[in-house]
């Protein structure tokens, strides 16, 4: 539409516009969950199991309850009796998902499993009282590793599972057996990645406010998906009988009608996706545990009858990286406590709790076979992967996401003709697995490590092996063998070629020689990958047929009667600077200054529903895409009315700096306020929205692949095993960039987490599943001294599509562990097969010391 292309010329998109968020953050006026302190709020402290695996034989809370200042003490059993459990929403084929309540009542399944709840006037008193709760445990053997979990005599964590294997699925693409049989050789390697804790500087927390008069709940929380939390709270704390719920629903005419209308709409909008859905997973789950039907029935009916849903809100969140996507088990009991006491209650997770069950990830093992010809042509890839899933599956998603994404990504940018992946989730007595910045990231680590191992076996340079096998823009097939289509945004090869150009091989050879003279070793490592951000039209279907529904976003915007532009988003920023980038996009579309746009987020009463919220790098492509599409829609309405008012053709309407005028005559312009006032007059209103748009945005179909190549040069001191990183380079292509400084910050943050993962961070459980890293003195987050300057080179492959924004958030962490472990392998002349390389391990690999 002609009017829409005449924008401000201010051109915020593409500039490193300074952050709007800084206005409050830099003066200490952020509103994080711990800053919400309602008058008279009570403090909740959980009593937690000190044992990894135990039967709870008795709990005595009487002394604790008598402690002065204590409002109430709840046993786990009492809380579970009045709540519904966490249930799998979309069971995968080949999986069994244990159904569990928020609290542990019969068994404790990991250190930190919550067994009782103390609510008191202050946190000090609550902790004092917590020490008075007497719990009798009967210790069971702890399952502290995948090997222990799979041993025939291992204790079983969940009665209905197959031993401790919760999920076992195999996906095959192409003629795997033939390809392997025909290849010259097969290179095999087993790779182990260690458990990491998904740590942000702010822990999780919830403050549940109860309105004294209405009983309505406002839940302040750190959730990345507030709508999901709202529904979960409503569903799980619903407590009416089935018949009562059904009767309540039937009698409430307006709710009944609205429900059926919405259901019809939903079915119509998602017809194809719903048809494509594979129900094998649900059938498999029900075969092992029919209780799912009972709980879903209860919760479903309860929800239908529920009049008052809680409002969930988060203003500022101090980082999440995926850990704040799943629901904290603790949130449900805290809501129950608030409801039963009729008072506000808060729980702010402390760092010890965060390291125990705030969310863990990445403990995975890969048995990799690569079928390759002697000339270096890779032919086939076979992987047998195991995930150490911890004890409780995160809700609504956690470990169960990983394999589904792996199967699409694993072959990477190489011309494999066949690929097979078996992935299993194994239950152990450890903290939950949550999404962690590129939950699938280890597929890149595994693949790029294996590529280097193949190169070593063939006596080839790893860069040459990549050059030989990596798709180019010209020879890329129409689709990956795993399904998703390939378009011009699949530019991994471009990033790889550019990265190679930026490495001075001769200098590197000289540096290596110099290093040896002082008992150091220098090595170079490369890693290439792509990620769907959000991906081509059929990406969601490749993961799981019919899951495209989850990628849809709703757009909402209004222009108020005074001319204010208000944009609503389902995104929940926790560091991504969405407030700034969305204003950039929208201000450009409207031809106004950024201050003239308001962005509303994070409150379930105001923002639109989203199943995923913020995660999976949706912020840019989906969040931003829907912003732009929505802005354009509402701009059309403004242009139409303005054209009338200016007595001009709509194509001649131009808006620059908020001045709406006929192109060429800026002196005779009108303002948004003028147009809004006219609209108000015509509609006979004096306040409220005068223009509004509700948009269904199909994320699928726009925006494609984000690609990158990481290059790491490491310098190892062979006396001490310490590693420095003299050079780290990222060549990345995420399409057009909204705000370059913000993108750079995201890349660097991701790389820093990758450096942390390889050289500093390990969530240590011993074989009996005792957790040894419970404070920041043991779990080592890298400081400014450990993170080098990171060079970033941007390529910007553009497409013809209307929305080109592609995600960048996860990328840094996807490439870094691979590049770094490849560099260490190169430096030491061996093949590294683990991801955790502290100084002790480096010296062991170098043959200088032996393991204890």
């Amino acid at each position: 539409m002609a009017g829409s292309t005449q924008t401000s010329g201010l051109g915020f998109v593409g500039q490193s516009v300074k952050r709007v968020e800084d206005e409050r953050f830099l003066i200490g006026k952020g509103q994080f969950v711990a800053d919400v302190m309602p008058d008279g709020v009570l403090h909740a402290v959980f009593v937690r199991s000190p044992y990894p695996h135990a039967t709870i034989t008795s709990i005595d809370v009487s002394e604790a309850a008598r402690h002065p200042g204590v409002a109430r003490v709840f046993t786990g059993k009492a809380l579970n009796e009045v709540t519904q459990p966490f249930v799998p929403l979309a069971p995968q084929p080949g999986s069994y998902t244990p159904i569990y309540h928020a609290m542990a009542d019969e068994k404790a399944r990991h250190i930190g499993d919550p067994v009782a709840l103390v609510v008191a006037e202050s946190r000090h008193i609550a902790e004092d009282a917590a020490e008075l709760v007497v719990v009798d445990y009967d210790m069971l053997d702890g399952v502290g590793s995948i090997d222990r979990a799979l041993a025939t005599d291992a204790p079983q964590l969940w009665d209905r599972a197959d031993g401790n294997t919760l999920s076992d699925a195999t996906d095959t693409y192409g003629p795997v057996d033939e390809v392997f049989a025909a290849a010259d050789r097969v290179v095999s390697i087993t790779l182990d990645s260690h458990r990491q804790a998904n740590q942000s500087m702010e822990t999780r927390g919830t403050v549940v406010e109860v309105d004294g008069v209405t009983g309505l709940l406002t839940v302040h929380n750190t959730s990345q998906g507030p709508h999901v939390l709202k529904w979960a709270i409503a569903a799980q704390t619903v407590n009416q009988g089935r018949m009562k719920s059904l009767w309540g629903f039937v009698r409430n005419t307006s709710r009944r009608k609205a429900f059926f209308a919405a259901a019809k709409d939903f079915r119509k909008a998602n017809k194809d996706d719903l048809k494509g859905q594979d129900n094998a997973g649900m059938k498999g789950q029900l075969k092992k545990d029919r209780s799912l039907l009972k709980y879903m029935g209860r919760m479903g009916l309860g929800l239908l009858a529920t009049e008052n849903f809680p409002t969930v809100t988060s203003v500022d969140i101090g980082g999440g990286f995926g850990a704040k996507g799943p629901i904290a088990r603790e949130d449900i009991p805290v809501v129950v406590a608030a409801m039963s006491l009729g008072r506000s209650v808060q729980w702010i997770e402390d760092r010890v709790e965060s390291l125990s069950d705030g969310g863990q990830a990445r403990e995975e093992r890969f048995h990799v076979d690569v079928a390759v010809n002697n000339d270096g042509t890779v032919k086939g890839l076979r992987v047998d992967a195991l995930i150490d899933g911890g004890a409780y599956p995160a809700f609504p998603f956690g470990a169960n996401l990983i394999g589904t994404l792996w199967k699409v990504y694993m072959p990477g940018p190489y011309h494999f003709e066949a690929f097979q992946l078996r992935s299993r989730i194994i239950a152990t007595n450890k903290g939950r697995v949550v999404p962690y910045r590129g939950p699938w990231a280890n597929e890149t680590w595994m693949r790029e490590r294996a590529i280097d191992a193949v190169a070593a076996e063939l006596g080839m340079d790893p860069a040459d092996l990549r050059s030989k096998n990596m798709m180019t823009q010209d020879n890329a097939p129409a689709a990956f063998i795993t399904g998703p289509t390939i378009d011009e945004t699949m530019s991994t090869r471009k990033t790889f070629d550019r990265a190679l150009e930026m490495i001075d091989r001769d200098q590197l050879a000289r540096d290596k020689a110099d290093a040896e003279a002082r008992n150091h070793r220098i090595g170079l490592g490369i890693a290439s990958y792509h990620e769907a951000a959000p991906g081509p039209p059929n990406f969601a279907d490749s993961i799981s047929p019919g899951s495209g529904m989850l990628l849809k976003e709703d757009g909402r915007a209004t222009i108020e009667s005074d001319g204010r532009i208000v944009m609503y988003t389902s995104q929940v920023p926790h560091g991504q600077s969405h407030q700034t980038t969305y204003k950039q996009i929208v201000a450009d579309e409207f031809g106004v200054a950024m201050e003239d746009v308001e962005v509303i987020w994070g409150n379930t009463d105001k923002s639109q529903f989203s199943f995923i919220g913020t995660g999976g790098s949706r912020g840019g492509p989906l969040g931003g895409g829907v912003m732009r599409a929505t802005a354009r829609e509402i701009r059309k309405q403004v242009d139409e009315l303005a054209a009338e008012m200016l007595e001009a053709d709509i194509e001649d309407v131009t808006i620059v700096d908020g001045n709406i005028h006929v192109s060429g005559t800026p002196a005779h312009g009108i303002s948004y306020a003028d147009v809004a006032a006219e609209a108000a007059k015509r509609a006979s209103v004096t306040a409220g929205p005068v223009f509004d748009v509700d948009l269904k945005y199909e994320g699928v179909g726009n925006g494609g692949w984000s690609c990158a190549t990481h290059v790491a040069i490491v310098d190892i001191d062979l006396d001490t095993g310490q590693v420095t990183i003299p050079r780290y380079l990222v060549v990345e292509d995420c399409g057009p960039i909204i705000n370059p400084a913000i993108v750079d910050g995201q890349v660097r943050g991701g790389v820093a987490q990758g450096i942390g993962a390889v050289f500093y961070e390990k969530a240590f459980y011993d074989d009996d599943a005792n957790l040894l890293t419970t404070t920041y003195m043991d779990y080592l987050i890298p400081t400014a001294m450990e993170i080098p300057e990171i060079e970033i080179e941007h390529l910007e492959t553009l497409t013809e599509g209307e929305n080109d924004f592609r995600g960048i958030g996860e990328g840094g962490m996807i490439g870094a562990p691979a590049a770094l472990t490849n560099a260490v392998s190169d430096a030491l002349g061996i093949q590294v097969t683990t991801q955790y390389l502290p100084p002790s391990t480096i010296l062991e690999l170098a043959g200088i010391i032996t393991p204890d």
Partner: protein
Amino acid sequence: MSHSITFTINGEITTLDIEARRSLADVIREDIGPTGTHLGCEHGVCGACTILLDGQPARACLMLAVQADNATITTIEGLADGDKMHPIQKAMHEAMSFQCAFCTPGFLMSAVALLEENPNPTTDEIREELSGNLCRCTGYQSIIDGVETAVRLMSRGES
């Protein structure tokens, strides 16, 4: 058992009766009000709770409030002069130093302390001095850039 303590915080004299075991961080946030001082670990490692005590950087989570009797405390809320931002705040905004900003208060106070003692630090000195503050979002480069920007602003007399 409660003790009466008096200290100056961000220019205002405050007298409180507080329990001995309460940390300075908790008392600032809960009793006095400013919540800009953040708690990231409560065992003295992350530095998010860094404040200035008699001009020197200190971790408010590692102090009992009673130890601050007669002290002068500055928190992030005390850096700006009314509407006028402290050069470090201006600089960090310029350099787009932060993302989720939970670590920000600690970094600002540490940077202020550094520049007060050493107005012209090298990049290495900045890096070392800030190594007592953890950040999970940025990879630190933008924060170091922010301090270097502050050095330039302050040497040009902009305050």
